[in-house]
């Protein structure tokens, strides 16, 4: 070790076979070593007892030892979904554009790409150019952020949106200019601006297209252009207290993408996303933004400790940010870096073993070491 080298080590127990494991570090490693202690102890076919990765191998790869059928000890490589690094930098950075092959009218909407998309559940994507012809298609969905809720195959994924409506036309035949791209750092600041997929004017349930990251007692404001219907939720004008914005409080967090507000106005206009394609130029999407934390007053706070360490998303599967305790619901900077241990398969002499997973199987105990070196030479 010389002046600027860094190293880190740790261990984890795999929660479920096939899970990717994210390791947060104060640096992006250039070298990673893994030891699956459970695989060393049990020695069963399809195990990956140890693996090594160097940044020069490329993102999403690894070289590993592997237990073939027999069982027999062997070597192999992981060519996809192996080890990769990440570093949340700035907003508005996108992955490569991928051609959309087709989108059928459905709710939720299933998107089919022309080639393998490589997306995972939870990834956030943006689509554009969703025209089947100059006057038909699904451009209403353009420009909004969507979180992938299911990955049906290597070329299909599902997003929360109702495209099974009269003003939507199915896309087919890989329309020119129809693309999807991954948003690399979608949650740098939490809770951020959210797009609205649906509003239930009876129950007050709001559905967002990505994780809303709100907590009970959070103060929120709505921006719903006229075309989308439920304009009564908008902040202004307040006819009771002129000049005073109308804000609402989150009364229940029903899931990572749904929440309920208190004091939903009676007689509100029904929400609709069935917007005519001709109205798309200049169409502003419906939005909800956080405007106050649980300390803003006006709503009885019942969410537990007022100053927890924030975890996102807020309903289930939450992960701590690098920040310490903060007021629940307050804005949080979510800059992170580190590496991901993917669940890629060991490939022996060009043939992948789909039962093997770099990130291990349920209850496997895995030790890792990560390094960044002063000097490296290709």
């Amino acid at each position, binding site marked *: 070790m010389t*002046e600027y080298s860094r190293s880190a080590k740790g261990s984890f127990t795999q929660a479920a076979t096939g899970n990717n494991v994210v390791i947060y570090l104060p640096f992006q490693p250039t070298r990673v070593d893994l030891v699956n202690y459970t695989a060393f102890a049990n020695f069963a076919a399809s195990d990956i007892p140890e693996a090594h990765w160097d940044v020069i191998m490329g993102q999403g790869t690894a070289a590993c030892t592997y237990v073939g059928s027999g069982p027999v000890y062997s070597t192999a490589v992981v060519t996809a979904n192996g080890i990769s690094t990440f570093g949340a930098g700035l907003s*508005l950075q996108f992955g490569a554009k991928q051609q959309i092959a087709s989108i059928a009218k459905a709710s939720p909407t299933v998107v089919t790409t022309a080639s393998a998309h490589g997306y995972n559940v939870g990834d956030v994507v943006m689509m554009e150019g969703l025209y089947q012809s100059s006057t038909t298609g699904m451009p209403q969905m353009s420009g909004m952020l969507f979180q992938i809720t299911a990955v049906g195959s290597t070329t299909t994924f599902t997003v929360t949106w109702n495209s099974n409506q009269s003003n939507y036309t199915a896309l087919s035949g890989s329309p020119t200019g129809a693309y999807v791209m991954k948003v690399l750092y979608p949650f740098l600041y939490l809770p951020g601006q959210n797009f609205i997929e649906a509003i239930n004017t009876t129950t007050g349930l709001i559905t967002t297209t990505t994780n809303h990251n709100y907590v009970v007692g959070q103060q929120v404001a709505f921006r719903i252009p006229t075309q989308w219907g439920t304009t009564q939720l908008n902040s202004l004008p307040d006819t009771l207290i002129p000049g005073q914005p109308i804000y609402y409080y989150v009364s229940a967090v029903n899931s990572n993408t749904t929440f309920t507000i208190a004091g939903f106005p009676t007689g509100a206009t029904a929400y609709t996303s069935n917007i005519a394609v001709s109205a798309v130029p*200049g169409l502003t999407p419906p939005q909800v933004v956080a405007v106050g934390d649980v300390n803003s007053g006006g709503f009885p706070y019942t969410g537990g400790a007022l100053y927890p360490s924030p975890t996102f998303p807020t309903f289930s599967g939450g992960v701590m940010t690098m920040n310490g305790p903060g007021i629940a619901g307050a*804005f949080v900077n979510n800059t992170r870096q580190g590496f991901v241990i993917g669940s890629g398969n060991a490939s022996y002499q060009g043939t992948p073993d789909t039962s093997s997973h770099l990130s291990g199987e349920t209850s496997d105990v895995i030790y890792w070491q990560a390094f960044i070196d002063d000097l490296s030479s290709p």
Partner: protein
Amino acid sequence: MRQAEDLILRDYIISAASEINAGGGTNGDNPTNLGVSDFSLVATTLDTNNAYKFTSGIEGMDRFGTGPVRSAYFMLSSTELQTDMDGLTGSGFLSQWNYPTNSSALPSEFGSVFNIRILTSSEAPVARGASANNNDVYYNTVTGKQGVTHINQDGFSMNLIYRDPYYSGMLAQNATLAVKFAQAQALTQDTAVRNLLCTRLSNLGV
């Protein structure tokens, strides 16, 4: 060294503030290119929300080619939009050089449209290829006086740190140059901030 905190504030605003898609342009995209009605719409929205303007206007003078400048909000735009704004000359855009006096204009000020004075920067946020028609989307942040604040926590403003090689390591090989700050940004009044999203009328060809 202030660029780091500017970028943080920029990203915070585009992550947390609400947006309006331009619809006053003619390119048929979503959002459209900037039309003068978009400036009017945003200024009207902020006025309706009782936002405070930054400047009180510049009175007209008897000088050729100049015109009075209204009291205004500030908008941060990309330098790549300057050609589109020049295209609005005569229909609402007033170049900074056509102010009655530009002694009060900021160095980065490009001009004004109605109640908005426009500052341009190459660091203004752009989402490449993100419009309905695959064009670049520009985030033009318009803010009233009370919309955003910047907090130096515990009086800890930005420090520029330089340690020469002798102090940075026992082999005296590398120097350290860094900035350190303990600051936070906050939207103090969300109704006084809007991101006006737009595309360009045509490509720059660069």
